């Protein structure tokens, strides 16, 4: 760090009331989490990658191209992430104090940028290293190839960090560039010429499979790209706009504060897009009955954040396909089903603004001329229609290819139950004070874990519903039990709405 920002940073850090005991406890927690959670997960990941199924996936003929496509997707995601939360960010007060001084931005933001960059490079290097090591361990690649691919991973991380920063400094350009990168990478999958002349194609060429060493041109291209990425960082930092950076900093602080308080819903709300388009289109058209009016109003309301809606619909389709494949796959597909449940739950967010509004109204003094129940049902019609339509369509695609109709019923069950879960989440309310009561036990205070479970209940239920929908026809009681559990939670929250 340059000496000049040090006094401001020292004052900022002096606010902290963390004692040595707190630091020791944090260290204990980190070690415990590493031993209890991270190590088993890493072991399971290694066993999965080096197992028969993992190796089969890593050694398919399309694996190198897929690796390139993943890298293109990572760079595109980094660009998009920068629009919302860039790597050059400080806490709001520190940002104001330093960014309004005469210090150059490359000095002000060097620390956070280096920290974010180190994290991204570590993740990319780790992923590439794990892939290379798995292939070398099973004899599909040499140790040299694995090492080279690990270095490629680090280079990918450097470029991703620069893309992340570019998304922050050029938010308007970032979206079309990200779409272009993904489109070009997807379109170039079948074109060897494009593979050899694109950065993600170079990653594919360096994939450690077979005996041929990676082409020097590909490696040189990636090194050059990473050098350019590092070289443009000062110029990118100088393009940072104080006002937009301050907005990002404030949102990030609000989101992290909510998340640390286990208010994950509130944290997500911070990043929910506010509408800016479609104001000239009348969303409310009375005259055809209130049911139609609410359906149209919800449809136009959702379309007023078009990007969010499109992403939601695409995710819904992906979730439906995943569920379908989980149902027809010969092995136990509950894990894939749980992933489908999570994706479908997240995808229904843009469609359920009306449900959340109805829940807020139900907890307040009467606003509409219809009862709370009818209001909630009215706002549920559009999401129900869209979710069932998209999920069943995806299931039909899988059913036709697998000559198995089971995914259609599973899709309908998942769609309806997920919407019920959304209603439950909308009615959830704040953390019940009773959960803040500490309880001593030989294992410590279990209420901390209970509070985390309470905060994450939506995701947990979504995963359980997805897994149950996968085995629905073989074990209908599991699906009925999951749906009944969610319905019970909804009924309980409905009765106790304020």
């Amino acid at each position, binding site marked *: 760090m340059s000496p000049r920002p040090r006094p401001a940073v020292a004052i900022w850090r002096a606010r902290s009331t963390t004692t040595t005991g707190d630091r020791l406890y944090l260290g204990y927690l980190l070690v415990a989490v590493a031993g209890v959670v991270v190590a088993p997960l890493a072991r399971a990941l290694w066993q999965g990658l080096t197992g028969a199924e993992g190796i089969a996936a890593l050694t398919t003929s399309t694996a190198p191209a897929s690796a390139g496509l993943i890298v293109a997707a990572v760079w595109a995601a980094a660009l998009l992430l920068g629009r919302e939360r860039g790597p050059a960010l400080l806490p709001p007060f520190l940002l104001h104090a330093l960014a309004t001084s005469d210090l150059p931005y490359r000095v002000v933001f060097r620390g956070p940028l280096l920290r974010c960059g180190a994290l991204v490079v570590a993740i990319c290097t780790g992923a590439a290293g794990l892939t290379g090591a798995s292939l070398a361990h099973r004899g599909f690649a040499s140790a040299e190839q694995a090492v080279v691919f690990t270095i490629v991973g680090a280079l990918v991380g450097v470029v991703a960090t620069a893309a992340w920063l570019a998304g922050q400094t050029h938010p308007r350009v970032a979206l079309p560039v990200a779409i272009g990168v993904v489109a070009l990478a997807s379109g170039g999958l079948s074109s060897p010429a494009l593979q050899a002349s694109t950065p993600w194609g170079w990653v594919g060429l360096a994939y450690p499979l077979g005996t041929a060493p990676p082409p020097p041109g590909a490696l040189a291209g990636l090194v050059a790209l990473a050098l350019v990425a590092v070289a443009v960082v000062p110029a990118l930092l100088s393009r940072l706009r104080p006002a937009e950076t301050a907005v990002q900093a404030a949102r990030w602080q609000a989101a992290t504060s909510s998340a640390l308080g286990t208010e994950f819903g509130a944290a997500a709300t911070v990043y929910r897009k506010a509408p800016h388009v479609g104001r000239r289109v009348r969303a*409310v058209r*009375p005259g055809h009955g209130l049911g139609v*009016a609410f359906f149209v109003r919800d449809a136009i309301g959702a379309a007023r*954040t078009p990007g969010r809606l499109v992403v939601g619909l695409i995710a819904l389709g992906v979730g439906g396909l995943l569920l379908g494949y989980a149902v027809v796959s010969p092995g136990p597909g509950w894990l894939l089903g749980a992933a489908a449940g999570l994706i479908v739950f997240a995808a229904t967010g843009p469609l359920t603004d009306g449900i959340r509004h109805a829940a807020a109204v139900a907890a307040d*003094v*009467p*606003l*509409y*001329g219809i009862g709370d129940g009818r209001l909630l049902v009215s706002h549920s019609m559009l999401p129900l229609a869209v979710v069932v339509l998209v999920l069943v369509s995806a299931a039909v695609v899988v059913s036709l290819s697998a000559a198995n109709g089971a995914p259609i019923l599973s899709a309908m069950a998942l769609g309806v139950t997920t919407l019920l879960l959304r209603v439950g989440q909308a009615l959830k309310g704040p953390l019940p004070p009773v959960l803040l009561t500490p309880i001593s036990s030989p294992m410590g205070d279990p209420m901390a874990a209970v509070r985390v479970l309470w905060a994450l209940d939506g995701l947990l239920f979504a995963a359980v519903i997805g897994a149950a929908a996968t085995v629905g026809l073989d074990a209908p009681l599991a699906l009925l039990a999951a749906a009944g559990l969610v319905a019970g939670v909804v009924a309980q929250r409905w009765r106790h709405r304020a």
Partner: protein
Amino acid sequence: MIDADGVAVATGGSTLLPPVSVVVGPGEALVVRGGNGAGKTTLLRVLAGSRRPTSGVVRIDGDAVDPRDRGFRRRVASMIGLPPMAPDLTVADHVLLVAATWVDESTAGSLAGSVLAELGLSALGRRFPHELSSGQTQLFGLALVLARPFDVLIVDEPEQRLDPEHLEVVGRALRARRDGGATLVVATHSRPLAEAIGDRFLQLDPAA
């Protein structure tokens, strides 16, 4: 219309609202005054049915207070804090939707339009809630509550966030409801607003 008899609220050993008895008839406006913590908002919550009194009884038009009862919902409109606002609806959309649930759909448009005009919000009809200033948001909240028929109107500190000019607009709108035969109960710290609408005053003092 409103008959509160010995209504009080206490919780955890603290008195939020000392016993209050008051009767307000049709076409009357009761202005509730008192310092912070005197129990003004608590009294309004009790009258609106969002808080149960620990003692005493409230009857509105002879019936018990029950916000889930259809008749009560139709008779009583209230604004205690800002009402929930749909983030994906414009100001005009939202007021029209509320009106369409209360009156015949063919007349909802004219009702919504007249309320927006009365509160000076017509020019802001195409804005989304997050694009309004704090004062405009206050007026929007009031528009949502006024875009419906009612016999009783309960409003808590409508002067919040408003400049004197818009406070006068709100005063005129509330007075028009009173003159139209509605029963008003308004808690306020604003002397000009109180003088503009009130013909009876209830002074609450913090409980000892």
